[in-house]
């Protein structure tokens, strides 16, 4: 491609997020041919949310192959996607890759690239797998060397990125992930599709079997292995609960250290989510989102607490207690306070579709709270609020659907609106029972 069209392509900027899908795929193909130029990388960073959404077929490159073992640890692209425990910044990869290329040498790189092209063109999966293993082993060695040089400050300038302890940890995790890449490939196959909402026994068996193989060869690598496994779950604390019961064939001290390491990361992760929750002050329309967030945090807190109890560790107790306190306060002030007025108001007066939707979300939020109220010590408060609201709603439904003279003149939809709110708060069984009783009473004998 000549320079002018290339520049105009890069100049498209934000427009790349809006052009039609076919053209977008074409542009991605063209950008890939332009190599690793900083402007190209910047453009890719900008369009990454759309790439993640559309997943256009990308040209296999050595850099992409390099990232494959630890891609689950990347910072999320799409809004709302969860952040993995011990994230690896994409910027670290972009700055590290040229150094790895330097360590591998142009001859070796050219040979790997040629093999990759050959395997891709022929569609030869076995050859591609063989190449991947050889490449990951060589890349692991290269990253290890880079890490050593960075530690001694000799490559800091070439890296062209401020090296914080966190980034240093990321580089070391990358080296480890590359060294155990085949095991991570097996792990990905076992924990698919990502994100797993629930860990079944066969998932755990496979994680344990792969982990045992790994522990025999390299005990230190288990940490990265466990981090990747956690990143493939909808909630990383799910793995924490199961981890204590897993036998990777380690010594008890190593097992405890591994558990402590993941626990620390998971607790920090929970704290981060709670902090983010405190920063955002959602309005009335977001009450269901508040309940979802609270339920997610309580699930993580409970799973972590259970894991801590089994392992008899208490060092995180205070931190977990603080998070729980913050969630308690959020539920009390944002969901319980004013619920009755909010919900009943929409049944008694016409508030329009948006008003009804808002009140319905509040009702749903109350129901969701029922699953976490015990854990937050809010059982009595929640029961008082729901009992009072349901009783008022039942009265409203009775008035309209109860068969009285007054009821005959009313719009039955108002009665059904009250029944629906009861259903959203107390569930369909209760709502069906109340409706059944009202209609039975209304029927002439």
């Amino acid at each position, binding site marked *: 491609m000549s320079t002018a069209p290339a520049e105009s392509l890069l100049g498209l900027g934000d427009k790349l997020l809006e052009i039609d899908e076919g053209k977008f795929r074409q542009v991605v193909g063209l950008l890939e041919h332009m190599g690793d130029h900083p402007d190209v990388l910047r453009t890719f960073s900008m369009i990454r949310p759309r790439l993640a*959404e559309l*997943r256009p077929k990308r040209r296999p490159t050595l850099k992409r192959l390099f990232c494959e073992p630890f891609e689950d640890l990347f910072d999320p692209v799409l809004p709302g996607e969860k952040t993995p425990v011990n994230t690896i910044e994409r910027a670290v990869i972009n700055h590290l890759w040229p150094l790895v290329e330097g360590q591998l040498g142009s001859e070796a790189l050219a040979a790997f690239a040629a093999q990759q092209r050959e395997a891709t063109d022929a569609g030869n999966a076995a050859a591609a797998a063989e190449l991947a293993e050889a490449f990951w082993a060589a890349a692991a060695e290269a990253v290890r060397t880079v890490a050593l040089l960075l530690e001694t400050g000799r490559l800091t300038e070439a890296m062209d990125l401020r090296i914080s302890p966190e980034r240093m940890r990321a580089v070391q995790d990358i080296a480890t992930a590359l060294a155990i890449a085949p095991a991570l490939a097996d792990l990905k196959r076992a924990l698919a599709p990502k994100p797993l909402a629930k860990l079944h026994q066969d998932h755990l068996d496979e994680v344990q079997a792969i982990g045992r193989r790994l522990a025999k060869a390299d005990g230190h690598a288990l940490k990265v292995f466990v981090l990747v496994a956690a990143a493939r779950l909808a909630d990383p604390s799910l793995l924490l609960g199961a981890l204590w019961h897993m036998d990777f064939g380690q010594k008890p001290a190593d097992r405890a250290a591994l558990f402590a390491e993941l626990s620390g990361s998971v607790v920090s992760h929970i704290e981060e989510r709670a902090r983010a929750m405190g920063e955002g002050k959602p309005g009335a329309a977001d009450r269901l989102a508040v309940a979802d967030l609270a339920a997610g945090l309580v699930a993580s807190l409970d799973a972590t607490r259970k894991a801590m109890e089994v392992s008899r560790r208490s060092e995180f107790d205070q931190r977990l207690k603080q998070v729980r306190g913050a969630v308690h306060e959020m539920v009390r002030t944002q969901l319980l306070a004013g619920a009755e007025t909010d919900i009943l108001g929409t049944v008694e007066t016409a508030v329009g579709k948006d008003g*009804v939707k808002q009140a319905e979300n509040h009702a749903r939020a109350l129901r969701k709270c029922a699953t976490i109220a015990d854990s937050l010590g809010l059982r009595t408060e929640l029961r008082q609020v729901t009992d009072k609201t349901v009783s008022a709603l039942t009265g409203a439904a009775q008035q309209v659907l109860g068969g009285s003279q007054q009821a005959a003149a009313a719009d039955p*939809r108002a009665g059904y609106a009250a029944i*629906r709110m009861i*259903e959203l708060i107390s569930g*369909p069984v209760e709502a069906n029972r109340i409706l059944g009783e009202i209609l039975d009473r209304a029927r002439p004998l």
Partner: protein
Amino acid sequence: MRSLTNFTPATFEERGAAVAFTTPVLAQTRVRKDERDQLEVLIPNLSEGRGVYVVAWKGLPLAFPMTVHDRMLQDLIAKNGGCSPDDLRKAAMEVARLGLAGPEAQEAAEAAHKDDEEQRLLINFQLIGEVLKAVGLESTDILRAGLASEQGQRLTRTYMIKAGQHLGIEPTELYLRVAELASAMEPIGLVSSPKPARLRRLMGELVRFRDSIADWATDNVSEAAPIGGFCAEVAEHTLNHVRTVIGRLDGAVASFEVLLRQWDTQRKVVRQACTRLSWLLDGWEFITALWAESQGKSRHELDIAVHEIFRIIPLLPRNEDKVDLSLEAGKVFTLNRRAVRAYVDWRTGQLDADLVMRIEALKGRAA
């Protein structure tokens, strides 16, 4: 409750028609009549296998916790007795209009009701226009006077009497024929209609769905891609049949004089074609809405949508297509069992409020 492991229905009636339930495990399950003319419901994939469970209609609330909307819909369907796609749609709209599936579904049901009424008026007028055209008369005078106005109606009567005389059909009989045609063709409308009727619009949605999911499946590395590809194939088979039936109907209307003159044979052809079309497109409204709603969402959510579509996709019955789609679906399921397993939430039987909410939102789009 009994289970049928290899459920390969031969006819549409045996396959049953989809019910717009909001209880997740019952969403888009199919209802049909058993040999004693009693309603029964077919529930797919309760466990992780293929096949369906057959539950007596009356026993449904005992087997599953149902939403208030669904209990009311179930009662209404039982009371009305019919279980054709049209019967079920009318019942679903009636319940949704009470607001029991939320404000979006209520609004959509109101809009659909209004649209039905408009289409009824429109097709009546268009068919009268076709009658007049068939005998060389113009309907522009009526249009100018206003169809609903007194003068417009007077003009219509005069022209219809003339048309009846020309065709050798009693005017009353001519009116009856037009009314019968209008009632049968109301959901399909005429090809010349300025506003396509419901089933023509749905056909367009199905074309878009097929293209979109086929594109997604071709360009995707997801484990759900082969399942998506299969869904596109089923849509394609269905579309082929829909095109044939609509072509036949449009052809019949194009030779309107023949249609009126050979009424005894042609009315059956039209009726059968209309019924067949409603069966062919039954269940697709929910699926196309589900897919459209998933666009722009995360990979995981798209995968879930594909699996859900696969679970409820209306496979053509054995006698309706050259390819045995039930057999093909079985193969797809066996090959992708591992990928399918992770999405058991829809089938757990637990009443998940989030899933109910999602289905209600889809009702808002699909009604």
